[in-house]
């Protein structure tokens, strides 16, 4: 392709963005003399990457000619998917590295290297470690192995063993060790012999200050970390013996030859090697100095705690090197790299998580405490507020003066969890009872104390009147609940764009208009007929006669059978009446396209159809919900609430139907996903999703054409997987073949004469559900 043509297509793809002209030319230059096939492929890739990150797209185009040297064209979309996953998980730098390392990975794969990508096995590793740990740990790829206590970071790929099963085992081993550290308290150790350390959930861990108090902090850290790994190994031999056995049956990861001249590094490296070859805990291990032998003995015979490890580290530091800071070598300790399953000890990451948890849970506590205080008698509350104000204006700033929480005198004597808690807030005593007291107790158990500033701010909020979080409404009707994010399917990368669409649910204004009355008047006869028709479909208890068993005797059958007997004929044994119940257990959601193309009489007929439909459904008794959808761009997908599934119908609902009107664009995917999740919450035996639309899915941004159709199709597939029957009623002048692709040949109907829709719709529904 020629440059002008390339740039033109490029600009079309990235519109409405307008990148710098020179930039574009530079990016596209490598493709001037490429075959058409290649150009087709890049124009397939760009729209997948550009909206996620322009920068990544630039780098990708730069590196692509090289990639094409070894990645077959057909595999490119899958690779693009991996690149995007990497970007979304770890950022631009990692994604760039990932692209650059692709070639070597390709070669390895080709050689049957046993390479395992984290992405491939994450689905089984996550439930594995959650089950083992008994809590919801996360796992993520990272450039080092470590845990921050919430997430365990793993290498994005492993190719240490030639067999992939062994590499998977290694993943499990890494997870198990990181979990073991949490379980055996490696991070939360606290030497109670040291009085002067005050635990503070926002400050450093005790371990941090311990290391920095050592004469050689880095060596102390490495030493502690290694000894804890040995302890973890002991723990795992007890808890997960199968895993440890499988691991010891694997070929040893060859420890790097010990080259360090530094005696401290040499010592640790030798110990690592012994741990790997299994000779470490044989007590007469020769290389270990006596301090360690002591520790091993304790570990194997009595069991050691993290505090014992701390003592051992102290002794090592003091004894082995005779107190000489440099271990006698005169050099700085160079540090060693940890064993792969041991990982790094990242105390700062752990502290950050602890801080976050503290603030998050603190915020929750402040909120409920404020609610609790606000519900106090007015008098008490204003007293509290007054004293709080005095304190604010006064000079005293000591937190501990402001407020404190203490257990009432019952504590310890009665069941602790029933005794009320007393808070003293600026000398005013407030009794906390029930759930509130329990919440405060839990918080203090977890973090040691409840800072006075939390209590102060709860008092402040209680004074302002803690209104439940109200969202400011806007001219289109207020948002009803917090925004929800849905993934969107990108067919080019065969994967989801994570949390791509932001859906807000809004209320339609209940508009008082004559529309409903007019409609009901206009279709008066139809409504009556519909009512009658639908009444016939209602749940019926049906008696079936002449059954072999049943609830009651069928007298006709009995008389006949007795007569038969008298006449010497064979008697029938069908003498019972059975009550059969054909229960209609149906829930349906109508999803109404409110894009601007429905302006005018198309929209009006849709509304009329809905009015008739609701009349019929009320008679029938099926549960139904109605929602409109429209919006612009992925960040503003709007769902308009007209009727929730279990909301009773009535004038308000009718008025909302009257208020349906054309809005913006048609992004179908998120609307379908939202409806799917709503239907998923009902227990109806049959669940239907009926979409009413006047054309193709389309949004202002790149949600168009094949992309939009494929996302919609995927959203519909997700609905089907969730046990929902999607059906579409489309109003158009001609049928489109994409409808087949979207819904399957029998799951949509197309109404070319809009005026007939109000009559057709109940009919369609009737056929659909009987």
């Amino acid at each position, binding site marked *: 392709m020629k440059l002008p043509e390339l740039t033109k297509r490029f600009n079309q793809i990235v519109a409405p963005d307008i990148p710098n002209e020179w930039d574009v030319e530079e990016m596209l230059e490598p493709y001037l003399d490429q075959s058409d096939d290649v150009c087709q492929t890049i124009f397939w890739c760009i729209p997948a990457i550009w909206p996620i990150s322009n920068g990544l797209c630039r780098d990708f185009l730069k590196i692509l000619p090289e990639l094409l040297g070894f990645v077959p064209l057909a595999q490119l979309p899958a690779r693009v998917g991996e690149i995007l996953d990497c970007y979304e998980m770890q950022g631009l730098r990692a994604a760039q590295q990932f692209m650059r390392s692709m070639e070597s990975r390709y070669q390895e794969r080709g050689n049957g290297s046993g390479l395992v990508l984290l992405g491939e096995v994450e*689905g*089984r*590793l*996550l*439930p*594995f470690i*959650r*089950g*083992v*740990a*008994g*809590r*919801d740990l996360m796992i993520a790829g990272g450039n080092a192995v470590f845990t921050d206590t919430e997430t365990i970071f793993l290498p994005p790929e492993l190719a240490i063993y030639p067999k992939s099963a062994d590499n998977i085992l290694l993943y*499990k081993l890494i997870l*198990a060790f990181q979990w073991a550290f949490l379980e055996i308290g490696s991070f939360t150790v606290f030497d109670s012999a040291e009085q002067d350390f005050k635990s503070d959930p926002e400050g450093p861990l005790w371990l941090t200050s311990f290391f920095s108090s050592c004469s050689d902090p880095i060596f102390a850290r490495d030493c502690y970390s290694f000894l804890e790994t040995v302890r973890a190994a002991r723990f795992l031999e007890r*808890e*997960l*013996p*199968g*895993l440890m056995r*499988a691991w010891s049956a694997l070929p040893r990861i060859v420890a790097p030859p010990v080259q360090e001249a530094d005696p401290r590094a040499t010592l640790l490296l030798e110990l690592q090697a012994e741990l790997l070859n299994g000779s470490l805990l044989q007590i007469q291990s020769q290389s270990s100095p006596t301090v360690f032998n002591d520790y091993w003995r304790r570990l194997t015979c009595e069991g050691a705690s993290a505090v014992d490890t701390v003592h051992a580290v102290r002794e090592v530091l003091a004894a082995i090197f005779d107190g000489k800071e440099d271990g006698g070598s005169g050099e700085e300790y160079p540090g060693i790299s940890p064993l792969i399953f041991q990982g790094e000890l990242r105390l700062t990451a752990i502290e950050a998580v602890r801080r976050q948890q503290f603030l998050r849970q603190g915020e929750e506590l402040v909120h409920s405490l404020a609610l609790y205080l606000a519900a106090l008698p007015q008098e008490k509350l204003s007293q509290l507020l007054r004293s709080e104000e005095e304190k604010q204006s006064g000079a005293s700033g000591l937190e501990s003066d402001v407020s404190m929480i203490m257990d009432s005198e019952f504590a310890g004597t009665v069941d602790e969890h029933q005794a009320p808690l007393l808070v003293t807030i600026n000398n005013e005593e407030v009794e906390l009872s029930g759930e509130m007291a329990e919440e405060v107790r839990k918080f203090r158990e977890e973090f040691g104390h409840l800072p006075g500033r939390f209590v102060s701010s709860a008092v402040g909020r209680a004074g302002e009147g803690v209104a439940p979080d109200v969202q400011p409404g806007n001219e289109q009707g207020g948002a009803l609940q917090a925004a929800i994010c849905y993934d969107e399917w990108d067919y080019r990368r065969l994967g989801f764009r994570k949390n791509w669409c932001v859906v807000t649910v809004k209320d339609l204004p209940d508009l008082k208009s004559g529309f409903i009355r007019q409609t009901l008047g206009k279709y008066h006869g139809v409504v009556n007929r519909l009512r009658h028709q639908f009444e016939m479909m209602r749940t019926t208890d049906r008696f079936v006669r002449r059954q072999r068993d*049943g*609830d*009651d*005797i069928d007298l006709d059958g*009995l008389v006949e*059978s*007795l007569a038969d*007997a008298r006449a010497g004929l064979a008697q029938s044994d069908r*003498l019972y009446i059975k*009550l059969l*119940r054909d229960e209609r257990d149906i829930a349906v959601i109508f999803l109404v396209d409110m894009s601007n193309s429905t302006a005018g009489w198309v929209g009006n007929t849709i509304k009329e159809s809905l009015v008739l439909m609701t009349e019929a459904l009320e008679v029938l008794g099926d549960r139904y919900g109605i929602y409109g959808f429209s919006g612009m761009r992925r960040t503003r997908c709007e769902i308009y609430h007209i009727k929730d599934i279990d909301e009773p119908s009535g004038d308000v609902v009718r008025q909302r139907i009257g208020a349906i009107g054309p809005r913006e664009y048609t992004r179908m995917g998120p609307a379908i996903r939202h409806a799917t999740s709503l239907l998923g*919450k*009902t*227990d109806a035996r049959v669940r239907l999703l009926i979409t009413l639309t006047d054309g193709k899915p389309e949004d202002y941004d790149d949600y168009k054409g094949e992309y939009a159709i494929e996302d919609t199709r995927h959203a519909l597939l997700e609905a089907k997987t969730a046990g929902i029957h999607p059906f579409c009623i489309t109003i158009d002048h001609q049928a489109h073949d994409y409808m087949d692709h979207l819904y399957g040949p029998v799951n949509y109907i197309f109404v070319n004469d809009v005026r007939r829709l109000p009559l057709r719709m109940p009919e369609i529904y009737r056929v659909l559900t009987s």
Partner: protein
Amino acid sequence: MSGAKIRLEEHRIIEEPYYLAQKNEVEIACAAHRRGLPLLLKGPTGCGKTRFMQYLAWKLDRPLITVSCHDDLSTSDLVGRYLIRAGEAVWMDGPLTLAVRAGGICYLDEVVEARKDTTVVIHPLADDRRELPIEKRGELLVAPPEFMLAVSYNPGYQSVLKDLKPSTRQRFVALSFTYPAVEQEAEIVCRESRVDRKLALTLVKLAVMTRSLKDSGLPEGASTRLLIQAGKLIEDGVDIPSACRAAVVEPLSDDPEMLAAIEDMVASLF
């Protein structure tokens, strides 16, 4: 009605069933029986509800009549119906009526599965009236003091919507069953499947692991029943991994990744 007597005798539990009490549930149930109050047992599948009822029936020395509820269960299935025998209409008591007449224990298993209108017939039996109207015969049965009604349901596995109506629920003394504590559960597995204690403990550990996967897509973890079954297979000579796969892993899920994860747990534990 000697036929009915014979049938009732079959429901009497002669030998003491093995039941390891979790807390004070036996005392509470006996008190409820003395005071004529009905029982509601809730808890996940395979945690010992049925076994508890058997034990209770033995202890109280009453026949135990169990009805497994399903969504086709009609009132007549519970109360009784007319049958034609040799050209004559003969009334036949349903299990509930039978239990009331004999002063036995009627246990409706999985009561939420029954149709809403069926559950309503137990209402007058389950409050202080303690009576069962048999409409078709125009008879009003008053339950003798020995009679006890017990129902069970599993709050976990159904959606929130499939729930007992408050008017039903609030007639019962409710006992909540969970999986027993690790030590106890191991002892149960030991007793019931005859595996050694160490193996039983590891089986329980496996179950505990699977039970924490609720948010990862496994709504209900391995029950005590599954562990006992695994233990029985092992006792019969099946090797441990195969026994666990057949008796624990496969019954829990069909999702390949979940299966792989649980297999990994088995491989790690044994």
